[in-house]
Each structure stands twice: as structure tokens, then as C-alpha cells.
């Protein structure tokens, strides 16, 4: 059993927090990780900043731009994460980013470094399912890295089943049409119908709902239909103007959980 599956063995709804590596300062990555884990985040996604993040809204675009200006890159990130498992032994850590920087680093290099650091899973929204299966699955497996795939309200049932088959971690349910951080603009009932439809499919993997989850209310709402939820943009926003970003992150996590 991997760390992600272990986390879902535990009772209670799961809070998965996303933050951008190297934001707000280059060396914020590790203090942020420790602070989020201590404050009670059940899973943590580290965003690997990309110059052109197509699936992200303005908040994560901005944190990515700042992180890149701070000098964040793959080599720096893996150096920062070198001893992270001594500090955070249990909390699952996932890397989230876009395919191009991973390709340039080399997919095999990337997997080797990630596994060595104790990373558990990888989310690459622009890596298509077929390309993953044909080109990367074997490498991911060799390093025991779990891919996480997105499901949207438009994803067809057969495709959801295939994604479920290829997954040994969790399914990332995108809450509605839009990029990260977008508010739910769907008509009342539409979102619930979508979540219920997925719930009724009795999938193998647990589900986390993400995109537009921003606070305690929206977290609890999402938890009615899934094993938990993912918060990114709202956390990044909570760091705005904070002198002590890790402390602000911890306060944010507490405000969602308590």
C-alpha cells in the first residue's frame, strides 16, 4: 500500500492542499510543507511552476510567475525536497505541473528524483491518457509513482472507468467548467447531479473534488459527495501580504478544518 492509499484508510474527510513551490520566496517550499502537514493537511500537492499554465486561473498563474522569478526550477525543487521524508514521514506528497518542464528534465530523471525524495504521486493535467499509457506508465510504475487524472462534468462514463482502472491513488473531480480558482457558476443542482452520478458509479478509487473550493463551507459541501476536497488558489490568496507565509498557511488550514 502506498502513502496515498494509507491516507485514505484513515477515518474522516481529506483535505488536500496545493501550493506553488518557491512561493512566496524561493526557500518557502519546505517550511510551507511542514506547516501544512502540522496544521492537518491530509495530502499536499506541490505545484511545479510553469510559464504558461493553461489549466490555471489568475491566482496560480501569478504565484507561478513569482516562483519562476524567484529562481524555482526542477533541480532546485528536488534539492529542497532531499530530506523531506525525515521531516514529514507520512503525509502523501504529490507534484503537480505541466508536461513540458518534465519532458525537458527527462521523464525518467524526473521520476527517479521524485521517488528518491519520497514523492508519492504526480499530476500533469496536459499529459493525455493515451500518451501516459503508451510512453510513461512503465516508467511511473518502475519508480512507484502514482499518476492522478482529472475527471470533469463532460468526461464520458467509459473514459471515467478507464481512468479509474489506471489509477491507484485518487480521482481528481474537477468541480465544474473552468480553470483553477474559478467560482462555481453552474445552475443550482447541476453540480450535485454530476457528483452524484460519479458517486453512483462505485469506482475503485476515492474521489477528491477540486477547483473553486475556497473555505470551510465549500470544503464541507464538497465532502458530502466525495472523500474530501482540494484547495489551491484560496490558500495562495491567504498568503497575500503575510509576513510569515507558513504561519498564514497553517491558519488557513485550521480555518477550513475547525
Amino acid at each position: 500500500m502506498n502513502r496515498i492509499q494509507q491516507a485514505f484508510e484513515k477515518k474522516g474527510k481529506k483535505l488536500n492542499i496545493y501550493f506553488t513551490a518557491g512561493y512566496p520566496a524561493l526557500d518557502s517550499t519546505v517550511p510551507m510543507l511542514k506547516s501544512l502537514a502540522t496544521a492537518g493537511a491530509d495530502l499536499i500537492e506541490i505545484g511545479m511552476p510553469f510559464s504558461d499554465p493553461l489549466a490555471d486561473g489568475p491566482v496560480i498563474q501569478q504565484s507561478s510567475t513569482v516562483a519562476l522569478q524567484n529562481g524555482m526550477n526542477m533541480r532546485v525543487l528536488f534539492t529542497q525536497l532531499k530530506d523531506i521524508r525525515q521531516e514529514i514521514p507520512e503525509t502523501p506528497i504529490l507534484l503537480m505541473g505541466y508536461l513540458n518542464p518534465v519532458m525537458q528534465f527527462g521523464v525518467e530523471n524526473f521520476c527517479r528524483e521524485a521517488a528518491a525524495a519520497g514523492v508519492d504521486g504526480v499530476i500533469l493535467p496536459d499529459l493525455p491518457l493515451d500518451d501516459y499509457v503508451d510512453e510513461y506508465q512503465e516508467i511511473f510504475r518502475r519508480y512507484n509513482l502514482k499518476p492522478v487524472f482529472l475527471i470533469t462534468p463532460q468526461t464520458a462514463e467509459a473514459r471515467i472507468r478507464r481512468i479509474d482502472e489506471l489509477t491507484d491513488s485518487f480521482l481528481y473531480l474537477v468541480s465544474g467548467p473552468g480553470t483553477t480558482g474559478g467560482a462555481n457558476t453552474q445552475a443550482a443542482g447541476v453540480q450535485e447531479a454530476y457528483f452524484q452520478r460519479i458517486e453512483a458509479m462505485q469506482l475503485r478509487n476515492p474521489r477528491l473534488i477540486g477547483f473553486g473550493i475556497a473555505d470551510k463551507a465549500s470544503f464541507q459541501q464538497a465532502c458530502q459527495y466525495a472523500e474530501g476536497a482540494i484547495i489551491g488558489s484560496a490558500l495562495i490568496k491567504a498568503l497575500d501580504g503575510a509576513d510569515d507565509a507558513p504561519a498564514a498557511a497553517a491558519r488557513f488550514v485550521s480555518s477550513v478544518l475547525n
Partner: protein
Amino acid sequence: MTTYKEPTARGYYGQFGGAFIPEMLYPNVEELRDNYLNILADPEFQREYQMLLRDFVGRPTPLFEAKRLSKKYNTRIFLKREDLCHTGAHKVNNTVGQILLAQRLGKTRIIAETGAGQHGVATATVCALMGMECIVYMGSVDMERQRPNVERMRLLGAEVRPATSGSQTLKDATNEAIRDWISNPVDTHYIIGSVVGPHPYPDLVARLQAIISEEMRKQLLEKTGSELPQYVVACVGGGSNAAGAFYHFLDEPSVKLVAVEAAGHGITSGHSAATSVLGKPGIIHGSRTLLMQDEDGQITEPYSLSAGLDYPGIGPLHAYLAAEGRAQFISIEDEQALRAVAECSRLEGIIPALETAHALAALGQLGAGPDDVVVINLSGRGDKDLETYMKYADSIQ
């Protein structure tokens, strides 16, 4: 015989192409992929498309023998007059086809990106024609340098939304258009303006622009006695006018294909958009292609004085033509392009678009002889660039 024209079922030209898109776009792109060939082949679609190309766009566009340029370069030069298309550039060939496609897919809302504004105008135009809602994303830098086109789009009833991220040019406008499509997955069709983006867009746009070379072959036969010239020359931003001009010559090895990129201030200046020289394989806007990027895989900001060529990638077909050596790539600096604007204006009475001027500026580098036939794709007219031409009047003299 190998063909350069058609990508594989998954949209690959050699190692380039594919569809690297987030799951949110998958249903849209899949719907397009599963339907575009059938729709394009449908006689009713073809009837309407051909009618619009003739009566609305004004096709066929003339193939004009440029006698004074020919004399100067001591070869036989023809200009394919895409500047005479309705709205002033080749871009409308694609938008006419895609709006008919969008209707058949049941879409009611159209989005587009634009650099020079020509694709935005061409999209706004067909949306007005069909009574569809139209939103065009344009980098704020480009809105400034191509102001007349912003006003044209607005007059045509389109909403122009500024893209304010990155270098605020074509790449950033494309990012915003893709994000809009992610947010509006059901009712919206994205009319991409070049042979870029995820499969099937590169193939779709190439097929819709292929009318350019289809006409060229007939016109060349009439004027020279042979369908085949020695050279076909076109500028490349994303590469749609070049794809259209090359298409029916791709599998004719005797025809030299010349793609002209923007070198900006110079290849080594750090301010350039010459992707075939400066790019490495990478992923941009859903396609694996040659891409200007740093060693960490971050996309670098391109530069060209010409908004339509100011893009850090090229279409996957062109990346393949470059890798295979099927097309020769030449890069032209801002200054050279500006001089070509003056030359074409004064020798032929045609003021070309700044993008097009890059193709014209390559004339001196072709090595064409007196008996050779050279076709330059005159992709657009220069009205939109008048402010730039006035600003750089000294270079143009």
C-alpha cells in the same frame, strides 16, 4: 510514396503534433477530431464553403506576375494575392470554413486569439455574417500596435478581451482563449487562427488554407505552362499561410519550399521569433513542436516587430518539414522586412503586411535563376501596419 500532408490518426507529423490537452478540453477536441473530416467532405458543406469563398471572400485570388521585382532579382516572380481576400489576409479562408463547421457542431459562441488582428477580424467578420457571438483575445501589446484591427473587430460586433499576462502578445492571447474554452466546454467553438494547437487543428486549418496552393497550380499552368514552380515562399508565424501555399506542393519534390521566420533584432540578440533556429522539441498550446524555451522547459518570450510572427512555436507540420529538410527555413530581421515593405510598395504598387514583408525580404537569399519561377504568398495587405510604417519611416526610406 510518403506524404507530408496527412498526420497520423493521433495527429503526428513524424515526432511532432499530438493533442496535449487537459481533460477539461478532451470532449471538445474529441468531438472536433471525430467529425471534422466528415464535415469537410460533406457535399453540402463544400457547396456552402465554395460559395462563400467565391462570393464573400472574393476567390480565386489573382496570381500576379511582378515584373519589376522580377527584373530586380533576375528571376520570374509571381505574387499570390491573398491580400485581396475580404478583410485583407488569408486568415478568412480558415474562418469561413470553421464557422460552417461550428454551426454543424451545434455551437453558438465563437472564441479566437489574434496577434496582428487579422485572424480576429476574419473571425469577427464570419460571426457577423452568421449572427454568432464572438469574443477575441488579443495581447495588450498587440492591441496597441494593431489598433485599426481592434476597431474593426469592435465595429463588427466582437468583444476584444486584452491578454495581460506574459509578453502580452499572441502566445498569451492563445492561453486566454484556451482558458475560455475550458470554462465554456459545451456551447463554444474555438477558431484557432493558425496550424497550431492540438490535433486536429493543424490538419483542419491546413486543409482550409490549401485552397491557396490549389489555385496556384491552375494559375501557374495557365501563365507558365507548368503547374510546378521552382520555389514557393511564405512567412511563418504559426504557419497557416505557408501551410496553405505549400500544401499541394508538399509531395512534389522538385518544388523548393521556403519558410520565412521573423528574426526580430537578430537571431542571437535575445529578441527574436525564429523558432526553427532557436527552438527545441517541446509542448505549446497542446502540440508537440519546435518551441523557444529555456533549459528548464519554460517558454521564452519571443520578439518580432510584426505581431503576426511574434510566436515562440511553429505548427507541427512545419517542425516536421524543418526536421526532414523538406522546407528551407530563412529568418529575416525587422529592418530587412521594413525595407521589403518599401520595395514592394514602390516597385509593384502593393503595400504588404509586415508579416508578408518577411517573405518578400527573402527574395535576395533564394539563389533563384533567370529561368526559375518563384511564387511568393502575399499573405496580407499593409493597412493595419500603417502606424508602424510611419514610426519607422526612416528605415523604410
